């Protein structure tokens, strides 16, 4: 237990150092960039006095060192800066991000769930009937889904199912009428608009899970303890679910962790293609409107998310597999 604690503390300290360095890099990268937030706020024809007044107000007339300390101090209080874009002029970036993030989380969460529900059974069946027709057929489809890039799969399914067949809406994400804390979509427009993006996001993930789970299962099924279990006369079902599947959970955790960490980033292309008002949409509009404080904020929040989830995965791994701690 002491081992686990020291591992966690070490990992946490390393994370803090990495986060600090990244925050610093982002700050100086933005500072050195050719854009001037005040000029963007006031437009090209701003007079000198207004520029000076606003610079004073936001502390931009101070030396870089002071600005840096202020920035870090603000971050520690959850202040990511203020938006410069006309539609949310002066709004805190953190509150803007927090209105867009849930949509992305929902999209990613449903896709992850669907991909696990589809991918793991396919992988399991493939492994149990290795080299059969079921195995080859299932794996071919899954690998195909995995290798086709999202920016190819998404537009082509939009074209086929949306524009030609009219089965589903081409794009959109009706966020009205969600029940149960906004987690369950209403049957109707919301649900219909959800089907295509969630399925396409899940397709790639399901392919990845099916492919990986098959190889994990095959690896475990080769082990001596499986042969022992079979030899002592256990039912096939007990051997498979009690012994084999259980021992694949560890490697499975090692691939699900990073998938969760990159869940938001993975949804970026899907959101753009389906015009879903999530974090990628916010990023894209901020890029178009040159709202750099929002872009920086999004970058920081997502980097922190990735690093934090990766750290949790490592700690979880150490918790269930004592060898990692050594």
């Amino acid at each position, binding site marked *: 237990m002491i081992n686990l604690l020291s591992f966690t503390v070490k990992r946490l300290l390393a994370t803090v150092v990495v986060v600090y360095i990244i925050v610093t890099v982002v700050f100086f990268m933005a500072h050195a960039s050719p854009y001037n937030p005040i000029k963007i706020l006031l437009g090209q024809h701003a007079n000198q006095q207004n520029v000076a007044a606003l610079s004073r107000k936001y502390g931009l007339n101070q030396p870089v060192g002071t600005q840096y300390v202020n920035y870090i101090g603000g971050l520690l209080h959850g202040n990511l800066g203020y938006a410069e874009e006309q539609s949310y002029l002066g709004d805190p970036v953190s509150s803007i991000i927090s209105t867009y993030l849930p949509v992305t989380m929902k999209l990613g969460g449903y896709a992850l769930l669907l991909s696990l529900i589809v991918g793991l059974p396919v992988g399991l069946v493939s492994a149990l009937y290795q080299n059969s027709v079921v195995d080859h057929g299932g794996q071919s489809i899954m690998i195909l889904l995995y290798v086709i890039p999202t920016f190819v799969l998404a*537009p082509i399914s939009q074209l086929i199912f949306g524009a030609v067949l009219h089965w589903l*809406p081409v794009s959109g994400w009706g966020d009205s009428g969600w029940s149960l804390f906004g987690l369950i979509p209403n049957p109707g427009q919301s649900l219909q608009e959800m089907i295509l993006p969630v399925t396409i996001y899940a397709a790639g993930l399901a392919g990845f899970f099916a492919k990986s789970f098959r190889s994990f299962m095959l690896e475990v099924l080769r082990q001596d303890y499986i042969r022992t279990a079979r030899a002592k006369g256990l039912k096939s079902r007990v051997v498979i679910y009690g012994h084999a599947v259980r021992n694949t959970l560890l490697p499975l955790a090692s691939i699900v962790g990073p998938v969760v960490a990159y869940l938001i980033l993975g949804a970026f292309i899907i959101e753009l293609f389906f015009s879903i008002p999530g974090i990628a949409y916010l990023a894209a509009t901020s890029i178009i409107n040159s709202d750099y404080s929002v872009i920086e904020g999004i970058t920081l929040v997502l980097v922190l998310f990735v690093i934090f989830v990766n750290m949790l995965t490592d700690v979880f791994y150490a918790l269930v597999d004592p060898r990692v701690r050594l």
Partner: protein
Amino acid sequence: MATTEDQRLSPPSVTGGTAELGSPAAAAEGISSPILDAEIGAPTRVSSPLRDAWRRFRHNWAAMISLGVILIIVIMAVFAPFMHTSNPLNPNYLYLNGAPNGSNWFGTDGLGRDIYSRIVYGLRPPLLVGLIGTAITVIVGTGIGITAGYFGGVIDNLLSRFTDLIFAFPAFLLAILVVSLYGSVLDPVFGGAGRVILLTIVFAGVSWPPLTRFVRSLALGLREQQFVEAARTSGSSSFKIIWRHLLPNIYGLLLVQASLITVGIIYNETTLSIFGLGVAPPNPDLGQMVYDGASQLGTGVQAGIFAETIFPAVFLAVMLLAFSFIGDGVRDAFDPRMNS
């Protein structure tokens, strides 16, 4: 498989003979044996790991077809000025979102620009960024990895921590941030190519950490091998050991990684292009074209919109799949055991 093993094993002894007979000294003395020369003539092609790999690669039809496809695509992109049918930037307001016909093979987009010509030119950004970015990534990643792995100790520690740091930063986000902050910095210097150069540098700058870790682990294993020890004992410098003994042993694996990195960079370039951070419009870029087409799908059934969605997407898919297949082929070629 037995015959190939034989071929691989037999040549050295035979070539030993040729070297003796065919040496300048022997020739000067007039010693020659037509019978022996004829016998030895055929198998003098020494088999090397590289040649073996190429032979195995040639028999992998998926990889060979992919190689052909990539060659065709590269030729199309390089010779775009001779391949296009009309100026990719010229709008034709009389034929907006037009269906494919004799003069517009893939139809026209929302501004009446020829989609085929735009695709031919649009291949350039992903290919340039992908291939040059990969070359830089491989050089940087291998350099750092092999240095860290070979020297170990403090150097390894410093380089590895640095690698971990860059590795922790999601490459794609860093690219978005850098390109949106510095997007047009290089444009005044390099003209329209500034964005492509920036993208190349950015992706090369964030893609190397995984390769570095991989190369480091290989170098850690190789430096304990006896041939490295022998080279060190006989007084070879560290640089020479790395250059002559370590690198040749990892060429195959590097090639495999390179194809994976190319796929990754092209994927990211396309994504950034969809975000509007690729080459500046009106210059064509495949990702931007697909997105333009797809975003108009809701507006109604028009052949040009379908064409603008499908054709660039197909080109992207084919290009990425071909690079993946080449990577698989190279892996199987250099390590046939993986296949079994």
